């Protein structure tokens, strides 16, 4: 163990390194303050800038002042600075362009993509550090690799690899390039792979280090990538936000492993902060859907027999555009409940236009936002904010439900499971117990939908067959346009 310590752990005093450590302390403080500010609406934007400043500081000072002690006792700074700057430049330009160009509706998959990049980065670091460490231990004739550094390297590789592969699959699913593969056998395969992954980490640590024998570490990398794919593959598209949040915290932990390896406090605090806050965020999201994390991962949703018995020959009632226009124009209070369909159709601006139009006729229009509507919690808020909808018009689910009795018309735009009464009155339903927006309590409900297809939970929605419900079929954007034209013509 001693040799490794001299490489990465025991520094002698040097002004450079002191300055570097102080910069890391500042960066850690900026990360913490940034994250704190990010969780309040008024300060969120500043918080993001603070965290970015901390990152810039840590990167700059690492390039300038990072030194490691060599075996002969001299300190050596960072080499290849030219190439590092080129790489930083390429990453910055590509990252900036991608982030500026992406549409607000495609934000979740972008976050997933960037998360995957971080995971891959962590995995690559481990892949390069392992041979160095093994060679070092081999030359000191160690009999095993049971030490913190080896553990950090192996876990960094495993977690980073899973995070990378998983994020890529999540990206593909959200971008609708990859479908779901649902098979109960996959659960057992996954469990087996997880076990194998852990067993391999332990096995490598007990191996006697040999110079330049890196087969096992490559196998571990492959296994991690493979497990990442099979881990996300069976999870349905609607659960992707939870998965991305989970993988986000994974990457945080992988980054912290790097911090442990290099005794780098900025990496350690930054990584763990994201790891723990990401886990809490994941749990908050699961809570909003009234499901356990395990339930999401195992993927109990979809294709189940529950609710199948209800598929009788029930009739739905359609409403014509002109009737809808009249109904809306002569109500006093209208509530819009947006869902993923609104995001897909990019209809958020039209939504705002409708709100404006009805507002000018004296109709009070508000939005009822289910915490998990869309593809990510808060996704609808971001989209509607993009369309200039005023913050105070957005009601959270409970407030929306409280006002439901006095609401004349609810317009459901591309939402399904979040307004499904089965969550409250059918205990056998897969979404039983999930809090929903009780749109059926309003005097009238208009559901805008492309077809009678089921939502992500793949279950029937009785709302569509209720006496007060009228359907308005078609693409959300096209239908909204026609509806607005119709109201203008009144």
């Amino acid at each position, binding site marked *: 163990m001693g040799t490794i310590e001299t490489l990465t752990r025991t520094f002698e005093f040097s002004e450079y390194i002191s300055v570097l450590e102080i910069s890391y302390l500042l960066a850690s403080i900026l990360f913490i303050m940034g994250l704190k500010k990010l969780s309040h609406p008024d300060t969120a934007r500043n918080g993001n800038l603070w965290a970015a400043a901390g990152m810039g500081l840590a990167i700059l000072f690492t390039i300038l002042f990072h030194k490691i002690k060599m075996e002969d006792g001299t300190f050596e700074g960072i080499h290849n600075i030219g190439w590092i700057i080129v790489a930083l430049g390429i990453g910055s330009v590509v990252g900036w362009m991608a*982030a500026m160009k992406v549409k607000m509706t495609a934000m979740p998959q972008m976050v997933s993509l960037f998360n995957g990049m971080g995971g891959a980065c962590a995995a690559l670091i481990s892949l390069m550090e392992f041979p160095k460490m093994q060679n070092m231990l081999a030359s000191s004739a160690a009999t095993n690799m049971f030490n913190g550094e080896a553990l950090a390297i192996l876990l960094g590789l495993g977690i980073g690899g899973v995070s990378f592969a998983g994020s890529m699959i999540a990206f593909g699913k959200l971008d609708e390039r990859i479908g779901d593969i649902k098979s109960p056998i996959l659960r057992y395969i996954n469990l087996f792979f997880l076990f194998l992954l852990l067993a391999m980490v332990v096995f490598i640590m007990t191996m006697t280090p040999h110079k330049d024998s890196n087969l096992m570490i490559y196998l571990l990398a492959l296994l991690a990538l493979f497990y990442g794919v099979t881990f996300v593959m069976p999870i349905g598209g609607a659960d992707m936000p939870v998965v991305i949040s989970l993988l986000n915290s994974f990457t945080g932990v992988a980054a912290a492993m790097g911090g442990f390896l290099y005794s780098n406090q900025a990496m350690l605090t930054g990584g763990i902060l*994201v790891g723990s806050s990401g886990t809490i965020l994941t749990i908050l999201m699961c809570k909003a859907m009234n499901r356990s994390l395990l339930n999401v991962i195992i993927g109990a949703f979809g294709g189940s027999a529950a609710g199948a018995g209800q598929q009788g020959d029930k009739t739905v009632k359609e409403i014509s555009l002109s009737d809808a226009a009249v109904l809306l124009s002569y109500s006093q209070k209208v509530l819009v409940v947006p869902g993923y369909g609104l995001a897909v159709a990019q209809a958020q601006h039209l939504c705002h236009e409708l709100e404006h139009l009805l507002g000018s006729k004296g109709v009070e229009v508000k939005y009822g936002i289910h915490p998990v509507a869309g593809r990510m919690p808060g996704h609808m808020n971001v989209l509607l904010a993009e369309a200039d909808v005023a913050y105070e018009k957005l009601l959270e689910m409970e407030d929306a439900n409280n006002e439901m009795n006095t609401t004349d018309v609810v317009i459901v735009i591309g939402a399904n499971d979040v307004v499904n009464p089965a969550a409250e009155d059918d205990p056998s339903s897969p979404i039983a117990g999930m809090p929903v927006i009780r749109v059926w309590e309003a005097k009238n409900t208009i559901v805008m939908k492309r077809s009678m297809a089921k939502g992500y939970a793949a279950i029937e929605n009785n709302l569509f067959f209720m006496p007060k419900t009228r359907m308005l079929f078609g693409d959300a954007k096209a239908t909204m346009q026609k509806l607005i034209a119709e109201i203008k013509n009144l």
Partner: protein
Amino acid sequence: MTEILKFFMEYREAIFIIILSVFLGIEVISHVPSVLHTPLMSGANAIHGVVIIGAIIVMGHANNVLAMILGFIAVILGTLNVVGGFVVTNRMLEMFSKKKKQK
């Protein structure tokens, strides 16, 4: 048993930082309104891009071509995570602040 105790003593500083940071992370975001879930996730996503420091260190001490290439890729990937993450988050939050001004 002594192995575990030794392990703890040797890495106690890191273990303390890890445990305290876990509580800090939970505490810092536990009262976040659901409106901010997506930007917060995105912001946290950018912060774990701090892994780029590791990539810079690896590349800064790379002494063969393979390590150089891998390090180069790692730095690019890390930068993508950092820059992309912060810019995306900023874009999302820009929309909220625009709202504030119009009020």
